[in-house]
């Protein structure tokens, strides 16, 4: 650990650039799935623990499509609608029945869904760690100390495009408006004739599509494995807890923050802490929120 610290801050501070860049690349992806979670949580009060498994699912779809030589942009255009439909089906079969229930039921049911998805993916794709190699050029900077694969740049741009699309959609469209209205007071929305059930189904499906997009990007810049989903769920929860519901800029900020934290933890402590890092940041965020709330004589609820 000491060696790594020295390397980072004394001998070759330029490596920091690499760590920060990597943190930004993964942070953008985290923010996408976290925003989906915030949406579903805020609108229908469902805490989706299968969030990360939706991400991994999108990743495997991308992997399968890539093996059929489908170009990247087309992969996104296929995966997102497919995940959207999948989300809609999950809503109809499962989420609809637990929506008015105790919050814990939604946690547990989606945890069950998460286990199921993991096992099915494990049966289909096997337990190996896989990734998509786009075979795109890699740029070097600072005497080869910093490498920036163009695939990562492309994913960052794509994440930006998707996020912008989501913002415009939520602000401008009737559906976005209906979603926000339902989030604030479903009963009033229903009285005024908004079809709540459709809004919920749409929201959940939309979230699945966002996760799917995040998964496509993850499979390009990182690795996927059937059981990696839970770490994405944990990250999403940490981000939403830190940023609050329905605050997109804060979600993006927290996403980058967690990306940076993880990359620095990895650089300093080593890769053995890969799983521990997002979990410990979740606990830290929860404790920090409690201290913050206690100052206002409140609890985190």
């Amino acid at each position, binding site marked *: 650990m000491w060696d790594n610290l020295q390397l980072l801050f004394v001998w070759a501070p330029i490596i920091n650039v690499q760590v920060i860049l990597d943190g930004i690349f993964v942070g953008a992806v985290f923010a996408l799935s976290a925003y989906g979670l915030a949406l579903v949580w805020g609108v229908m009060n469902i805490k989706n623990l299968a969030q990360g498994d939706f991400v991994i699912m999108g990743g495997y779809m991308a992997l399968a499509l890539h093996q059929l030589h489908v170009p990247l942009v087309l992969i996104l255009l296929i995966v997102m609608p497919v995940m959207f439909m999948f989300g809609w089906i999950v809503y109809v079969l499962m989420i609809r029945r637990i929506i008015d229930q105790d919050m*814990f039921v939604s*946690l547990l049911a989606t945890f069950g*869904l998460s286990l199921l998805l993991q096992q099915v993916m494990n049966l289909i794709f096997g337990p190996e760690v896989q990734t998509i190699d786009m075979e795109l050029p890699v740029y070097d900077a600072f005497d080869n100390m910093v490498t920036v694969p163009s695939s990562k740049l492309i994913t960052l741009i794509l994440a930006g495009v998707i996020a912008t699309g989501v913002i415009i959609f939520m602000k401008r469209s009737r*559906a976005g408006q209906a979603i*926000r209205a339902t989030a604030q007071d479903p009963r*009033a929305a229903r*009285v005024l004739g908004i079809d709540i059930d459709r809004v919920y189904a749409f929201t959940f499906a939309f979230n699945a599509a966002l996760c799917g997009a995040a998964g496509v990007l993850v499979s390009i810049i990182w690795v996927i494995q059937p059981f990696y989903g839970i770490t994405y769920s944990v990250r999403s929860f940490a981000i939403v807890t830190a940023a609050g519901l329905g605050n997109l800029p804060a979600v993006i900020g927290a996403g980058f923050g967690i990306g940076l934290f993880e990359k620095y933890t990895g650089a300093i402590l080593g890769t053995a802490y890969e799983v521990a890092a997002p979990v410990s940041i979740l606990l830290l965020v*929860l404790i920090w929120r409690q201290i913050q709330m206690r100052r206002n004589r409140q609890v985190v609820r």
Partner: protein
Amino acid sequence: MTMTRDTKVTYGLLALFGIFGPILFPDYTLSIAYLWMMVLMASTWDTLGGQMGYNSLGNITFFGVGMYVSAIVQITFFYEGGVGEYTSAMGSIKPEFTQAEYFWGLGLGILAAGVVGLVLSVIFSSFMFGLRGPYFAIGSLGLAIAVAEVTITIDYVGGASGISMPLFPGDIEFRSTFFYILCFVLTIISHFLLRWLYSTQFGLAINAIRDDEDKAEAMGIPTLAYKRIGWAIPAFFMGCIGAVAGNMAGFIDKEVAYPIPTFGIFMVAMALLGGKGTLWGPVLGAIIFHVIKEATWTYLLNLQWVALGLILIINIVYFQQGIMGWFEGVSKSYGGVKANVDITMGVERGSITGIIGPNGCGKTTLFNSIVGYHPIDSGSIQFDGQEISHLLVGDIARLGMLRTFQQTRIYGKMNCVDNMQISVSHREDSKFSMFASRRGEIKDRAEHLLEFVGLYSKRNLISGDLSFGQQKLLEFAMALMNEPKALLLDEPTAGINPTLINGLIDRLRRANEELGITLCVIEHNMRVIMNLASHIYCLANGHMLADGTPEELQNDQRVIDAYLGGH
């Protein structure tokens, strides 16, 4: 602790099964031992989750820590080289423990595991109980994952490669019988301890915390202390049973000690399946779940995990009331009070009709039945010649009949204009209008209507920041925005200052005359209703007492006795 006859019979049957099960089916001894272990896990989980309402996904932590603690104690006391040497040998050392050494070590190990679990839970309590609801559940899950990850970085206890438990000094049959008895006895002890606890003040207090912790706190209940104990008891037993399970397994590593996706989630599912918050629910749920699990394990090899995931989802989504819930549901549903009986009333198109009556006479219930919140037991409700008594709230709203609420319901985080814009009529919606962009004329109309109710100058303020009276005006304007044919208003003047009330009466009348909206108004303010309505119905005790013009009602002796006279 008095017991009913049923309870005694149940205990008798369980005791018979517990004693004769392994004798009759010796091949299944360990499987039944695991069943008792599941009963213990589900029951103790329920203390925190079901009885106290703190749904933990991390109780498995104490189980795993208990395993490791027990291993450390057993090896440290009776192996000279200590744990470090033992683990660094990677299982090549198999010290022969005498029976005395082994059983003493195990006894001390179980006790130590329980105590460490308890201490750990108290430490967790210090930073976990400021979290409520989902945050506690997620936090405890994070805690479990974190402790598991930390454990595998500690080389002292074998790190990622795990640690072998001391060999059992005896043959296989003796071994399984011994562990069976341990599991059975521990389960019995935990069951009767919990049974006693739930009958004490403690049981009441944790139930109070579950139902309304703020209220409990406000009543002076030392909630944190109760919560600490409520977690320490499960933690103690989870530690003990972990120590036993570790010795049963013979070898422990991260997967054995912290089975988060299996035992960790099974115990919750069992408690839910049986019925949470009851003494018997978790026991029942554990028995049923364990049988199903063993069956899938035997008959669905390779797919057993998929099958379990499905069972879990089906269990939670469709049977979350639990089996105990079925018994309770039947008796509860017959306890209703009849709020409205044989009410016949008509509202003429384009008129203003009033409804009056003492508090609790069923006026709001009547509204709820009309706009579709409550089902009606018999009778008919028609709107515009169409039967609507079977329609849902949203359908009725889209037909053009809206209501406002006694307590205002607005979108508190949006500004007034946005509140208005989202309130447009959905009568002519098509499939794609969800995605339509906002039109300029809608905004104009929104602002016009805000001016109509006198909120134009506040139009860009966040609606939640408005005063209660202004929020009522906003809600009225939102209802108008929807261009309803009929509008049901629940006490529109409650909470509005007296000088504004005249303006409101004027606006209601103008909405009726200029926009042609039929109004039906619940009102306590006699001056308002007598001025406004052309026809008034008076309800009392859920019955229709009288109806007529304002003058007729004011002179009706029954109305005066029930309502207007007031003494």
